């Protein structure tokens, strides 16, 4: 089931043309690439996807590359902490390998102004990439994931419930199902109040099986809501291949049922993701209704990882104890790592003449330093006060302690 879109056209194009003209060449090449790679999918029917990335400034392209690196190094640093630091308590559903999806989508969104202004995204149990791409503060997020009182959500939520409505990051969600339906409710309110905001729901391939997936798309289509469903198809829901939950190769085919555009995009290539997202966002803002985008991608680590992980034995870095049947073969993982979203983004920016190899190295070093500093800062942050567990149940007051009888 390994879907391996042909991106060679991009890279070859990048070698041939200098500067901005390369981008123009790529605009043609990417469309050709889409035709080749998307095969029989319905995405071809929407061949009007523009090469919007050619209009991005160098600063915007740099910001996207930096975001990809920040997500990657947050993941890797966290994994290292789990392996080496016995005092570290955070856990994670790792996003490494999927960075281009969150980055490409959020680059097409308005990422400030709170829930009345910003475009809103609904995230999943694998939220750290979405959060960073949307503009959530790195330090505050790292602190939340380590249960610190100064964390993004005061230590109440941790990894599966990080949320920052100020930047339109409506939050992670530990459940598979309700998220997209709730997201359509936000889109409904936005349309009803005449705002031009857009709502994006991120969901994995596993969400296809839920009744909520179909409810979300059906109602979004019926009401022409400013709603974009981004399926990150990383081939596995929890520990099972998506063929256990979806009878189609391309989940985007489901869009046809609801008479909305369905687009398959190479989720490893941030530029292609951005192009598809920008098209969908423009369409939603113009009142033309929802889009389903399926980004073909892959997670490098297992379903989740926790402190005490040991390479090859437990958690994020080898075979999960729960993965007794139907789990992914190693050579599949290695094949996907050959199409690393960090490498692809770097090659594109270097090819376009936005940065050179030395500058790329410099950016990565700075990102690593920022991430290291964030984790160091977090390690010094205070733990939560037990009694605070009785707060925030309602807007006002506290509930009573009942555990003492």
């Amino acid at each position, binding site marked *: 089931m390994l879907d391996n879109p042909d991106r060679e056209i991009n890279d070859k194009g990048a070698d041939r043309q200098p500067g901005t003209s390369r981008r123009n060449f790529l605009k043609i090449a990417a469309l050709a690439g889409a035709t080749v790679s998307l095969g029989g999918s319905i995405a071809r029917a929407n061949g009007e996807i523009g090469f919007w990335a050619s209009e991005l400034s160098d600063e915007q392209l740099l910001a996207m590359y930096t975001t990809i690196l920040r997500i990657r190094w947050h993941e890797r640093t966290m994994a290292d902490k789990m392996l080496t630091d016995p005092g570290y308590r955070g856990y994670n559903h790792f996003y490494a390998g999927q960075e281009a999806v969150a980055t490409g989508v959020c680059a097409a969104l308005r990422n400030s102004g709170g829930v009345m202004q910003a475009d809103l995204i609904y995230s999943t149990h694998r939220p750290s990439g979405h959060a960073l791409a949307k503009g959530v503060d790195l330090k505050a997020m790292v602190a939340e994931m380590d249960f610190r009182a100064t964390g993004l959500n005061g230590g*109440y939520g941790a990894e599966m419930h990080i949320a920052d409505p100020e930047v339109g990051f409506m939050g992670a969600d*530990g459940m598979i199902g309700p998220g997209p339906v709730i997201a359509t409710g936000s889109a409904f309110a936005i349309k009803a109040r005449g705002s031009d905001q857009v709502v994006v729901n991120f969901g994995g391939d596993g969400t296809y099986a839920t009744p909520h997936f179909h409810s979300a798309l059906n109602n979004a289509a019926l009401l022409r809501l400013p709603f974009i469903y981004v399926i990150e198809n990383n081939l596995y829901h929890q520990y099972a291949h998506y063929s256990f939950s979806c009878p189609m190769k391309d989940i985007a085919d489901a869009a046809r049922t609801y008479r909305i555009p369905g687009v398959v995009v190479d989720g490893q290539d941030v530029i292609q993701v951005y192009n598809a997202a920008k098209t969908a966002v423009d369409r939603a803002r113009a009142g033309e209704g929802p889009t389903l985008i399926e980004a073909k991608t892959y997670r490098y680590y297992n379903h989740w990882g926790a402190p005490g992980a040991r390479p090859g034995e437990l958690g994020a870095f080898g075979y999960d104890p729960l993965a007794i049947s139907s789990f992914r073969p190693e050579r599949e993982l290695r094949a996907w790592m050959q199409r690393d979203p960090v490498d692809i983004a770097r090659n594109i920016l270097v090819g376009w003449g936005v940065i050179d190899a030395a500058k790329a190295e410099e950016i990565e070093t700075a990102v690593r330093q920022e991430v290291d500093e964030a984790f160091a800062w977090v390690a010094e942050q205070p733990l939560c006060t037990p009694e605070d567990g009785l707060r925030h149940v309602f807007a006002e007051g506290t509930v009573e302690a009942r555990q003492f009888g």
Partner: protein
Amino acid sequence: MARKSWMYSVLEAVRQEMRDDPNMVWIFELTPPVASNPGMPVINLEREFGRGRVVNTGIDENWMASAVLGAGLAGSKAATYIPYQGACMPFQVIQNHAGKLRHMTGGKAAMPIVFVMEMTGQTPGFAGQHSDYEIDTYYAHIPGVKTVIPSTPYDAKGMMVSALRDPDPVVYLYPAGLRELIEEVPDEQYEVPLDKAVVRQEGGDLTIVGSGASMPEVMKAAEALAAAGMAVEAIDLRSLKPMDTETLVNSVTKTRRLLTVDQSYYTLCPGAEVIARVAENVEGARYKRVAFPDAPPPASPEMFLWMRPNADHIVEAARRLVG
């Protein structure tokens, strides 16, 4: 007879029922029906019975519960294992269909089905949706559904056998925090009743009633209190619906003091029902409830562990009740 883990004991029961009844089906997601135990053959229901009868679904708990109900209505014994992430997704189909159909059809609908509902509530760090322990209250409220909650591997096997042989729908709660318990469990099938509480320890000073994941803490507290000279009668409810009023009333008639312990939220926790039933039948007794506060479980271990009822809390509450 051998020392067996919880899941091995349960799947041993399921395997035998599936061998005895070629129509029986099992539906799961995430958690394969596989268990191993030292010195014993691996149990793998999917391998033994094939994917025609043992189905790994997509993430759709509504389908899992509905399909089991439909299978039961069509005359096949059926069970599903719903992991704790999704234990309330199928609430509607259990509450409004499974729980009412026999009655609404004037007794014509039969549903030999089991909903295994995994619960947590034991794990600090996982926050509201993955640390909660509240579904005992929800499911126990439904008429027409038997809601049971074993607290030992022995009971887990025996109650699974009974549940699978029962003609009515059973919500079989599984507090996953107990998965590490190991004890002697017979190899053959045996039944533990679905409507009887059990007195785990006899005593005349105070009755403590718990269920599921509370029981290890209750027993720890009973031991500590015994060392301090207090004779505790410890009762494990095992079945929330029907609730064994007789065992509860007999005990408190003797002790005159009742302390209930729940990992569930305070309001309408199983202990509230226990106290109500005893109060209707015993004059002049004293009561106290230990339960999780009416707040979602926070992620922070500092907050969560302070809020989750434990043996120390039980000991202190018992002293105040008796003293």
